[in-house]
C-alpha cells in the first residue's frame, strides 16, 4: 500500500474530569460575594426553603472544570465543520466584542425610548437590511430562533386567513410541505393549527407546478418551501408555483435555512414570497453556541406587514419610537425584543461585509460545487447537476462492503473533521449532506476531499476501521438505546455506586 494520507490533526492528551458536584467543599467561594450593609430582613418561616443543593467550588476549580470540558468539544475554530443545512461558517471575533459593549449588554429592555435610541436604531437598521437582502418590505427581530421564525411566519399566514374569512373567504386548514423539508416545517404547521399535505419531490429534485396545481385546493392556506431546497438545488418552478398559490388565495412561507447560497443573486420579492425567516446563526455568522441561542427574524411582503409581531420600532423624524397600536398584529412572540445580543453580532457582520455578502454566497456555492466535482467519482451522487451551497451524496457505493453513512461520518472524526449532516434529507436513502461554507479555503477543501477519498478507499480495503471509528475521541460510539430505555437525565437519577 503506497497511498499516504495525513489526517488534518487528531490525537493528543485527553484529560479526565469529574462531575461538578463531585468537586468542591461546602464553604468555598468561586466568586466575590456581596455582604449586606443594611439591617437583615426575613420572610415568614412557612414559605422559607433550604435553597438549591449546589456544590461550592473555588474559582480555580470552576476554571479547570469548564476548560477541561471544552477540550472535549469540536468547534468551527477547531476545524472544518461541513454540516449540511447548518452553515457552520467562521464566527468573527469582533462581533463578540461589539455585543459585549456595556451600552448594549447592560441595557434594561423596558427603558424609555429616549434612553435607548442607539439600541432601537440598531434594531431598526438591521430590520431594514434584512428586508433589503432578500428583496422584501419589512422585518421583525422578535423570533428567537429559526423554528420560532417559522412559527411567526405561519402564525401571520393563519392570522391573514382568519382576517379574510371574516369577509367570506373559505376556511383554511391545510398547508403544503415538500418531502424534502426540515422537520421543523411540519411541526410548525401543527403548532399553527394546520395539517400537513405532503408535496412529493419531482424526478429532477425539485417540486413541480403540476403537483401544486393538483394539491392547492380551497382549504389550503399556502406552501412552506425551503429554497434552495435541502438537496442543495434551486427550486426551478417556484415563481410560477407562487403565482398559482396567490391566485388560489394562499400565501407562501419560505424557510430561509439556506439563504447563504443566494444573497444578492435571488430576489424573494420578485419570486412572490410572502414571508421568509433568517437564521442569523447561519447566514449572518453568529455562533451556534452548542445549540443556541439563535435568532430567527422574519422578512415579509407588503401583504403581511400589518400582521408582524409587535411592538415594532419605527422612525419618526430622527427619533426611534415603539409602535404598539397594531390591530392586526399576531401579538408578542418574545418576552422583550428578541435576541438583541445576537442581532448586534449580525448587524456588525453585515456592516463588515457590505457588498461582500454577494461574494460570500458565490464562494459558498463555488466551494460546494468543487467538493461535488471532486467526490462524485468515489461517492454516489443521486442528483448529478450543478448544486447551490451544499451537495448530497449517499453510501450506495460503499454498501457492498457493509459500510454505512454512519460509519463514514464517524471515520471522518478520526481524520480531524466534523461529520457532514447524515440521513437527511429523508427522501435520499442514507444521505451525506455536505455544506462547506465560503470561509473554508481551497487548501482546507482539498484536505477534506483527500480525507473523504481516504475513507472511500478504507471502506473497500479495511472496512473494520470504519466500523470501529472513532477511536481517538474522549468517548467512542455511545449506547443510545440504553440511554433512551432507561433515561438518566440528572445526577440525582444516577444509581448507587455510579452516583
Amino acid at each position, binding site marked *: 500500500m503506497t497511498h499516504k494520507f495525513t489526517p488534518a490533526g487528531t490525537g493528543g492528551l485527553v484529560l479526565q474530569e469529574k462531575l461538578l458536584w463531585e468537586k468542591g467543599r461546602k464553604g468555598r467561594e468561586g466568586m466575590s460575594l456581596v455582604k449586606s450593609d443594611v439591617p437583615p430582613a426575613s420572610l415568614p418561616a412557612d414559605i422559607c426553603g433550604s435553597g438549591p443543593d449546589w456544590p461550592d467550588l473555588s474559582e480555580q476549580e470552576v476554571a479547570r472544570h469548564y476548560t477541561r470540558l471544552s477540550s472535549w468539544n469540536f468547534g468551527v475554530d477547531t476545524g472544518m465543520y461541513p454540516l449540511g443545512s447548518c452553515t457552520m461558517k467562521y464566527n468573527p471575533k469582533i462581533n463578540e466584542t461589539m455585543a459585549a459593549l456595556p451600552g448594549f449588554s447592560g441595557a434594561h429592555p423596558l427603558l*424609555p425610548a429616549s434612553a435607548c435610541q442607539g439600541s432601537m436604531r440598531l434594531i431598526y437598521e438591521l430590520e431594514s437590511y434584512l428586508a433589503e437582502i432578500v428583496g422584501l418590505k419589512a422585518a421583525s427581530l422578535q423570533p428567537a430562533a429559526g423554528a420560532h421564525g417559522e412559527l411567526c411566519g405561519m402564525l401571520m399566514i393563519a392570522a391573514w386567513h382568519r382576517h379574510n374569512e371574516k369577509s367570506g373567504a373559505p376556511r383554511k386548514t391545510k398547508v403544503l410541505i415538500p418531502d424534502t423539508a426540515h422537520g421543523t416545517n411540519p*411541526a410548525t404547521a401543527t403548532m399553527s393549527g394546520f395539517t400537513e399535505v405532503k408535496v412529493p419531490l419531482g424526478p429532477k429534485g425539485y417540486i413541480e407546478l403540476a403537483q401544486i396545481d393538483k394539491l392547492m385546493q380551497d382549504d389550503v392556506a399556502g406552501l412552506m418551501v425551503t429554497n434552495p431546497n435541502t438537496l442543495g438545488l434551486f427550486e426551478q418552478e417556484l415563481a410560477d408555483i407562487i403565482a398559482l398559490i396567490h391566485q388560489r388565495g394562499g400565501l407562501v412561507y419560505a424557510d430561509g435555512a439556506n439563504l447563504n447560497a443566494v444573497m444578492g443573486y435571488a430576489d424573494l420579492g420578485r419570486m412572490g414570497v410572502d414571508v421568509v425567516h433568517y437564521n442569523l446563526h447561519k447566514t449572518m455568522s453568529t455562533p*451556534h*453556541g*452548542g445549540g443556541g441561542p439563535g435568532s430567527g427574524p422574519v422578512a415579509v411582503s407588503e401583504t403581511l406587514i400589518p400582521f408582524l409581531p409587535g411592538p415594532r420600532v419605527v422612525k419618526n423624524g430622527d427619533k426611534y419610537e415603539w409602535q404598539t397600536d397594531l390591530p392586526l398584529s399576531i401579538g408578542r*412572540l418574545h418576552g422583550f425584543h428578541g435576541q438583541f445580543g445576537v442581532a448586534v453580532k449580525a448587524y456588525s457582520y453585515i456592516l463588515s461585509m457590505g457588498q461582500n455578502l454577494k461574494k460570500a454566497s458565490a464562494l459558498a456555492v*463555488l466551494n460546494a460545487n468543487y467538493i461535488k466535482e471532486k467526490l462524485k467519482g468515489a461517492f454516489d451522487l443521486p442528483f448529478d447537476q450543478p448544486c447551490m451551497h451544499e451537495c448530497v451524496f449517499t453510501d450506495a457505493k460503499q454498501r457492498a462492503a457493509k459500510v454505512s453513512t454512519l460509519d463514514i461520518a464517524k471515520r471522518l472524526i478520526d481524520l480531524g473533521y466534523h461529520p457532514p449532516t447524515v440521513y437527511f434529507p429523508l427522501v435520499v436513502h442514507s444521505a451525506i449532506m455536505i455544506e462547506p461554507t465560503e470561509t473554508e*479555503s481551497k487548501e482546507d477543501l482539498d484536505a477534506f476531499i483527500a480525507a473523504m477519498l481516504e475513507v472511500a478507499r478504507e471502506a473497500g480495503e479495511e472496512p473494520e476501521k470504519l466500523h470501529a471509528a472513532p477511536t481517538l475521541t474522549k468517548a467512542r460510539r455511545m449506547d443510545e438505546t440504553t440511554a433512551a430505555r432507561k433515561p438518566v437525565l440528572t*445526577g440525582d437519577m444516577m444509581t448507587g455506586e455510579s452516583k
Partner: protein
Amino acid sequence: MRYLPHTQADIDEMLAAVGLNNLDELFEQIPENSRRIRPLNLPEAMTEWELTAHMQELAAAGGGDWQVFAHAGSQPHHIPAIVPYLASRSEFLTSYTPYQPEISQGTLQAIFEFQTLISRLVGLDVTNASMYDGSTAMAEATLMAMRITKRRRVAVSALVHPHWRQVLSTYLAPLADVELITLPAGPDGRTDFSGLCGEPAVLVMQSPNFLGVIEDLEAASQKIKSLGGLLAAGFSEPFALGLIKSPGELGADIVFGEAQSLGLAQAFGGPTLGLLSCKTEFVRQIPGRLVGRSKDVDGKDGFVLTLATREQHIRRSRAVSNICSNAGHCALTCSIFMAAIGGSGFRQTAQVNLDLAAYLRSGLEKLGFRRIGSAPVFNEFAMHAPNNFEAVHERLKSQKILAGLSLNMWKNDIPGFNPEGVWLFGVTETSGKARIDALLREIEKGA
C-alpha cells in the same frame, strides 16, 4: 475581505475544476424570474476600526449606562469575570448542537450538569436543555399540560408578567377550541383563584409574581388538583429560590422560568434563558433537547442526546414542539455562574437582595409611598406613589436614573388590579445601601 480566504488564483483553479468561466455562471440555475436585478443596497463595507467607532457611538446611546430600580423580568446581578471568560472559549461557542456525541462531550456534560442544577433549584425531576426565554417556556409548559390532560381550558393568573401572557395568547390563537381564562388579581397582590372551575388543563402561576409578591403555590396546587388539572408555576427571578420553597416542593407539576439573573447580561432583553422542568412521568411530553448519561462501546461513561423521538427532526408534524435551536450557550453560561456562586453563595446573595429590597421599601414608606397588601415580597415590589412622584421620576431621568417603572404602561392588562399611580421597584445585590440612600434623597427632594 478577511472572512473570505479565496485568492483570484484559487477561484480560477476551482472554476476550472467545475468547468465554469466565472462566478456568476454558478447561478445560471436560478430562473430569470427569480433572479435579483438590483444590487444590494447596503452601506459600504467597514473596516474593524470603522465598525468599532460606529458601534461605540450607538452603544453610547444604547441605554446600558442607566441605573434602573425596577426589574419586570430583567435583573442586573453581578456577573464575575470568570463567567463570560470561560463561556467564550470557542470550543463551546463555535460548536453546533451535540448530535455527534464523540466530539461534543464538553457541551453534553455541561448540559447534563445544567439539567441537574436546575432540577435541584426548582424541585422537580427533569429539566430540558433550555428554551428561548421565560415567556416561550411558559407557552410550551401550557401546551404540554394540555397534551397531558387532553383538556383545552387554560387558566392563567393575571399576575403573570403581561408580556408572557401576551406570548401565551399568540401561541394559543391559531388552535381550535382552546379557552383561555385569566384569573384576577386579589387585593393583597396575590392571584384570586377562587373562581377557577370546570375542567381546566392547567393553572399557570408566577411566583414571585409580576408585582413581586410571593404567591401561595401550595393553595394553588390544591385547587387545581381538585379539578383534575396540573399546576405550571414559573418565575422571572430565580434568586428568590435561594430563600423560598421551590415550586416543585409546593406541588407544581411543570416549572417554567427565566434564568437571565444567573450570569447573563440584560442585553436589552435577549438572548436570555428559558427553563422548563417537569415530573418524570411527563418526560415524553416535554419539548426541547434532553441529555442523558450512557456508556460508550468500551463501557466508559459519557453523555448523549436522548429521547429525541419527541422532537421535530424525527416526529415531524406530530412532534411535541417545533423547537430546534435553544439557548444552549446561555445554559452553559448560567451553569458556570451556578458553579461559581455555589449553593452557599447563592443563598447568601439572595438574602442580600431581600435585605436591600426591604430597606428601599421602608425608605419609600417614610416618603409617603404605600404598600399593596401585606403578602411577602423578595427583591421587587409595587407601591402606590405620592402625587408628585411622576415629576420626580421624570427629573431623575436626566441623571440616567430610572426610579421604578409605572404600571400605567399595562393599565388594561391586569384584570382585578388598578395600576393607576402604582410603581414597580426592584433592587439586587448590585444596588447597595449607598445607591439606595442616594435614590431616596433624590425622591425626598421632590420635583
